[in-house]
């Protein structure tokens, strides 16, 4: 788990750029990943540039239906949108 490498801002930017998730600003940032014309997964990201604790990191990964390692890959770049779609379609 590479939670200490990223802050909440990094996660939000990654989700916006790689997964085309549009976030709504409320108490926290909430956004949906669309698969075709349906909303498939929803992620909550705390506001600001906060340190991500392990349980928060894992919770965000699980919201995206990813393992810790897959979430690491998403944030580090190897996992692109196509790979992500294949993962969540398989679940």
């Amino acid at each position, binding site marked *: 788990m590479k939670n200490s490498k990223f802050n909440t801002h990094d996660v939000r930017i990654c989700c916006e750029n790689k997964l085309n998730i549009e976030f*709504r600003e*409320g*108490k*926290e940032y*909430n956004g*949906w990943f669309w*698969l075709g*014309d*349906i*909303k*498939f997964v*929803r992620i*909550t990201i*705390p506001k600001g540039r906060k*340190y991500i*604790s*392990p*349980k*928060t990191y894992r*919770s965000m990964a*699980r*919201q995206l239906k990813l393992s810790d390692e897959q979430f690491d890959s998403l944030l580090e770049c190897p996992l692109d949108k196509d790979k992500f779609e294949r993962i969540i379609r398989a679940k």
Partner: protein
Amino acid sequence: MMILASSMVSSSNSRVYDQTLINDRNGYLNHTFQIIEHKAQFPYGLDLNSSNLGQGIEYKDLIKLSELRAISKTNKCLGSQQINVLPHKSLRKPINIIVESDEVGYISRVIDLPLYAIGNDAYESIQNLRIEIETLYYELMEDDQFSEEWLNYKKYLQDIIID
């Protein structure tokens, strides 16, 4: 049984707020207590760090106030809890959540939904989770363009939230 402020129990301004289970660090159930909330004093629930702790609250099973304060100020896991009311809506039945300490604060998660919220203390994380649940409900009510999984969550929330 130790009863504090027992007059609150029968007051029309009071209500049972949360049935709370406190787990110790090893996950064993230590205490069960029931909180009677006095609306005027605790409009958003129990403030574990409040110096007013004890006013308008009834504890059962002999949990002492000093123990509760000590638990809230340490990193001990608060375990499973139930949310009985949302910020602007009531619930037909409670929503089960888990509250845990994390490296820099607390995290609360809904058992039946992929939802979490964080806070500097357990109270704040639960309050934030209440907001998150209600936010999700509003989002789900906007349309039906959701996966089957999320449509099931929508039905679940529709069943328990009183509009």
